[in-house]
């Protein structure tokens, strides 16, 4: 699959915010720098990083919904075409869709059926088939977000990606706070999306999830892609990854000994680190 044009290609992507400091002094805060990644049709790529490391902003940047004081650099390409703001506006909801983090992304005064329906194309059939697929019964159709269980709300959010018919789906922290069985179900839905030929970019802080579902894993630290590794190889042994942060992440997992590297901050080492991102399928 390496030869085909990837659905999404992110290269040396940077993102910074302009803020006012003391008085009229403007401060630039860099949140993402040198981020590189690609997603092909039919595969799931996970971006794994600590909470608050700016992962969600990547999703917002791809969709062109960043706040107005954000500035970006580097390149974002969709099917080989550079994503300008106007192209993003044309593609979002049609070719690229987002599965957001929480129920707060659902309109509190709108029924489930209507939420699932794409704002761009009115298709009752599509809504119905999505609701069937995600086991949302007929009674769920007329329920409001406050009446949904956490798992149902999650399925509704994933359902929205299906009715859009988008080829690239960005799932932003799809599973936090869910019961184990719900997590499995959610991951199943994502796998199903990939099986349908869509490319899925899953943003998460939970590397275990990434092991279960992803084909490749991009390890993200302090706004940088530390490296992109094959998920299976990464799971099997820390020797298959190069960067010390990735290795530390592996060792920190309960099943791998629960070791934490105390007082170690890999922020500085990243620059001197390995050739991030160019690692393709092993």
């Amino acid at each position: 699959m390496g030869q085909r044009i990837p659905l999404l290609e992110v290269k040396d992507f940077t993102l910074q915010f302009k803020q006012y400091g003391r008085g009229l002094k403007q401060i630039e805060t860099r949140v993402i720098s040198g981020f590189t990644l690609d997603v092909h049709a039919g595969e799931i790529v996970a971006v794994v990083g600590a909470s608050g490391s700016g992962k969600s902003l990547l999703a917002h940047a791809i969709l062109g919904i960043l706040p107005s004081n954000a500035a970006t650099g580097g390149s974002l390409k969709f099917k080989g075409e550079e994503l300008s703001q106007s192209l993003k506006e044309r593609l979002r909801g049609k070719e690229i869709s987002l599965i957001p983090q929480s129920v707060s992304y659902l309109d509190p005064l709108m029924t489930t059926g209507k939420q699932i329906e794409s704002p761009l194309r009115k298709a009752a059939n599509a809504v119905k088939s999505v609701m069937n697929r995600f086991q949302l019964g007929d009674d769920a159709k007329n329920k409001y977000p406050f009446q949904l269980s956490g798992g149902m709300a999650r399925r509704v959010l994933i359902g929205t990606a299906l009715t859009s018919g988008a080829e690239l789906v960005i799932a932003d922290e799809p599973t936090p706070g869910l019961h184990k069985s719900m997590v499995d179900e959610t991951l199943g839905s994502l796998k199903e999306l990939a099986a349908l030929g869509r490319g899925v970019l899953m943003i998460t802080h939970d590397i275990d999830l990434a092991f279960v579902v992803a084909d490749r894993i991009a390890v993200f630290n302090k706004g940088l892609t530390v490296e992109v590794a094959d998920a299976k190889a990464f799971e099997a042994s820390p020797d298959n990854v190069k960067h010390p942060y990735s290795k530390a992440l592996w060792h920190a997992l309960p099943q791998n000994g629960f070791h934490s590297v105390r007082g170690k901050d890999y922020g500085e080492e990243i620059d001197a680190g390995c050739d991030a991102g160019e690692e393709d399928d092993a």
Partner: protein
Amino acid sequence: MTIPLKPNPPLALPRFVILLRYSGKKALRLLLLMFAVSVVCFVLMKFSPIDPIEAYIGGEHASLPPEQIEHLREYWGLNDGFAVRYVKWIRGLLEGNMGTSIVYNQPVADVIAEKFSASLLLMGTSWALSGILGFSMGIIGALNRGKLVDKFIKLYCLTLASAPIFWVGILLLIVFSVWLGWFPIGLSAPIDATAAEATWGDRLYHLILPALTLSLTGVASIALHTRQKLIDVLDSDYALFAKARGAGKWLLFKRHGFKNILLPAITLQFGTIAELFGGSTLAEGIFSYPGLGKAVVEAGIRADLPLLVGIALFASAFVFAGNFIANLLYAAVDPRIREGARRI
């Protein structure tokens, strides 16, 4: 270890039972409110320094023989103590008799009916006008946040919100009636016509300035609240998500904005009924508009107790009804409130 079971949630009742129970509770509350209002009116009047007889016959007081005055006192029941008068009044009220107005020398119910029909036209027009205008202005402001239109709307609202009604009214009078001569100075019909002769055109013509006065000032709060609420909605996660799903500005407003800002607008609009009552009293005073507001002022300064209590009761029932309607409309708009009502 056993975990104690939570009590079952109360059964959901049919809708009309909920409505009936709710209305019953509210009716009881209204009765208590009216009782309190009437007591307060009587107590206030007891301490009022105005003598109704003196106010009624004015300067001729000295020329009237004392036995005549005594007769009038007896006729209006002014010789009884306030407690006795209150009991008599309540007894009358229970039989459907609100008493006789001293100022108008007519049954209170008739006076209220007549004055209210004039006021209703004024209040209804300005209420609808300020509601629709304010709501639209708020939406326009929020959708164009930070632009010139928005700044203008904000400036207008903040200025008008801090301008007293009587001042705006006098200003309009000076400009449109005195300088330009476009509108009449006052009253609700030409001064030389009897009530029967006045046409609808006459009435509307006389209505414009007072209604404008009330609308201009009434717009401010609903416009500012609607603007802020819509801005909150547009900044919300679900608006962001809708944008990510390809919804443009207009679609975003139609799909998510409108319904979410309707509730606070309804609250506010029905809440302003009380303000409107107060405002119309001022506006009617300035424009000598013969409505309920003018009548209540007359009743106050001439110590016409039956009329004053009558209007106070009527006004409280009116305001109460406004809030009651607002509560019912909430439930119609917001499913969360509907659900809450079922559980209580």
